[in-house]
């Protein structure tokens, strides 16, 4: 194998249980987002656009669709002669099957994958967040600071700081303290879960962590504190820009709504930083003479005969005459009949909403439509 300067490891094994029925049969990184994409498209596109051409994707939970979606990586320009994308599921060794029990152990079990490329640096990412970032800039920063580990941080609102892993730094951005979900945060710089390790440090500390039977083998909870204890050089890389964790039904909906409006923070139309995905290849959308479309995002293959207001519609969605879709997210190939009203809801892929259905939220809680809900409304469903 050809030596690589930096290899990325993308942790995509999470269950995303707070997305309820959306992740019952689907890994969280494969959840649809933004009218056309899947959550993992953002991280993969960031890798491709940052010039990182070797990416290991660690899958575990319900990997079938995610694995076939990633394929050999051609969609993100990662089908390369040397490197490219490799899906890394858990595997059995001669003695036992080893599931990934923690983020650190998942990487540890794949050191052989990394060793092939003799990397100088390893970039550790998760496939859970929506953001655009040039990892090459972060790598240059890591090299300049002669850091052992660089952690990307983002400023969060003070009121939310206690939900995150908070870093306390010197003026020089050297990390001196790390607090996981502190009740009285000293700082509002939160860890984004993006790490760049110098290869030797990664190897050494993953091995050290693996030997510790009391460890939960998690980067944030175990490895980072261990590195700080040992006085290793950890630096904070400040990130400015849109970054959204879409791990709950509410935040997934918010993230989609964030894409509407003329000047939204996450620009999907930026030709210099394209978000790649596996394109659905459907005919252009058709907006009928009866349709009214206001402030929305609509993908190809849709047939719209009703009113769409402040909503995100994925590919192949049909909306019948007289129906009103308001502040909602309608996922691929869903069919909305005639004279329906869907307000503040997420309609998952392939769901058929019968004629005349009304689904609307009266408090601000976003409704995730399920088959059970529909069969409750229509007992013969």
């Amino acid at each position, binding site marked *: 194998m050809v030596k690589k300067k930096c290899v990325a490891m993308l942790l995509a094994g999470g269950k995303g249980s707070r997305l309820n029925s959306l992740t019952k049969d689907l890994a969280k990184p494969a959840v649809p987002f933004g009218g056309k994409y899947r959550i993992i498209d953002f991280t993969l596109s960031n890798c491709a656009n940052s010039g990182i051409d070797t990416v290991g994707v660690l899958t575990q939970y319900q990997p079938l669709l995610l694995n076939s979606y990633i394929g050999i990586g051609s969609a993100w320009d990662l089908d390369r002669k040397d490197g490219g994308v490799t899906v890394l599921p858990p595997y059995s060794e001669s003695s036992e099957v080893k599931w990934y029990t923690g983020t650190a152990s998942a990487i540890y079990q794949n050191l052989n994958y990394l060793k092939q490329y003799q990397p100088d640096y390893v970039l550790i990412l998760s496939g859970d967040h929506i953001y655009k970032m040039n990892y090459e800039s972060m790598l240059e920063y890591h090299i300049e600071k002669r850091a052992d580990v660089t952690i990307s941080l983002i400023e969060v609102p003070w009121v939310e700081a206690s939900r995150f892993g908070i870093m306390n730094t010197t003026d020089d951005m050297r990390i001196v303290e790390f607090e996981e979900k502190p009740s009285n945060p000293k700082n509002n710089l939160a860890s984004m879960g993006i790490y760049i390790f110098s290869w030797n440090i990664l190897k050494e500390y993953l091995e050290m962590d693996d030997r510790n039977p009391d460890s939960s083998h998690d980067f944030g909870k175990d490895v980072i504190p261990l590195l700080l204890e040992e006085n290793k050089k950890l630096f904070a890389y400040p990130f400015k820009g849109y970054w959204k964790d879409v791990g709950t039904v509410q935040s997934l909906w918010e993230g989609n709504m964030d894409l509407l409006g003329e000047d939204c923070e996450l620009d999907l139309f930026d030709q210099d930083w394209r978000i790649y995905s596996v394109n659905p290849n459907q005919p252009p959308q058709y*907006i009928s003479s009866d349709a009214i479309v206001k402030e929305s995002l609509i993908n190809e293959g849709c047939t719209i005969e009703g009113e769409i207001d402040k909503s995100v519609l*994925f590919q192949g969605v049909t909306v019948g005459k007289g129906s009103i879709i308001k502040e909602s997210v309608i996922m691929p190939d869903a069919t909305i009949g005639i004279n329906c009203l869907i307000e503040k809801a997420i309609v998952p892929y392939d769901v058929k909403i019968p004629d005349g259905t009304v689904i609307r939220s009266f408090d601000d809680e976003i409704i995730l439509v399920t088959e059970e809900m529909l069969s409750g409304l229509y007992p013969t469903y």
Partner: protein
Amino acid sequence: MKRKLLGVIDATTYHEDLEDLLTHRSLAALPFAGRYRIIDFVLSNMVNSGIRSVAIFPKMQYRSLMDHLGAGKNWDLNRKRDGLFFFPSPFVDSDGNRIGSFEHFAANMDYFYRSTQEYAIIANCYTIFNMEFRPILDWHRHAKCDITEIHHQDGSSMEMYLIKTSLLIKLIETRHESGYTCMKDIVTAIQNDYSICHYKYNGYAVMIDSIENYFSTSMKLLESDVWKQLFLKDQPILTKVKDEPPTKYIKGSSVKNAMIANGCFISGTVENSIVSRGVKIGKGAVIKNCIIMQKCHIDENCYLDSVILDKDVKVEAGTQLTGTIRSPYVIRKGTRQGALMNS
């Protein structure tokens, strides 16, 4: 599984009446229906009919066609065996001396000699249709004709032919002796040694040979029964895929009876139109009965009625352009159209 049919797409045709849209591209590469090129229809039909070997014979400006087709990946034709073959013509037409398609085929006989498929379907590149060819092949074999010509409902030729590959080879090899320069010559000859059968196709099929019918056929796409016949889920029209985001509708926009491709940013009014990918329509702009090709920018408060904008056209704020349905106003690729320009 042994394949019975290979596909030949004769993309050497040039229709003068489409001149304004063909200065930079061959007819086969003419954009259509918002995200396709005309050749996508016949090519997709071939692939959907189980054909895995397709030879395309283009002529003249074939750069954009070649770029569009690539190695055939988007049509599942980038294969180790067979696949997509692109045979640019080494000949240049001189005025008044049209070179027949057999001459172009003859320059690439190896393709035919090496093919293992027993039958060939030879089609033009400019028909808009969605057709499965296998039933026609079965019919042809059953009818035991030398050549089957496919006809429209009204009896006019669709300029598509089914023939045994071995016979096709013979026809190409003997073209100078026989005087037949193309398939059309043979089927229209008053007397010849071959049995010609006609297969009537009752589905929707239109040949694009003029600005007028390019425009009217595009507008037909807005009718659901035409749409339903062309865009079938089981027989999709495949095309080169682009990474465009979903289309964004901005406050104040109004869109009615329109077909809109991805990547558009719409702040104005669009009615009865076909809008291709990456088009930006500014606030207060009104587009009616138009065909707007990729990446055009239509600035604020423009008024366009019955206009065809080729790729990359920029229409400056406040410009008014009006054509008619019979004679739409065509603006060539890359033009910067100002409000005060009078051409």
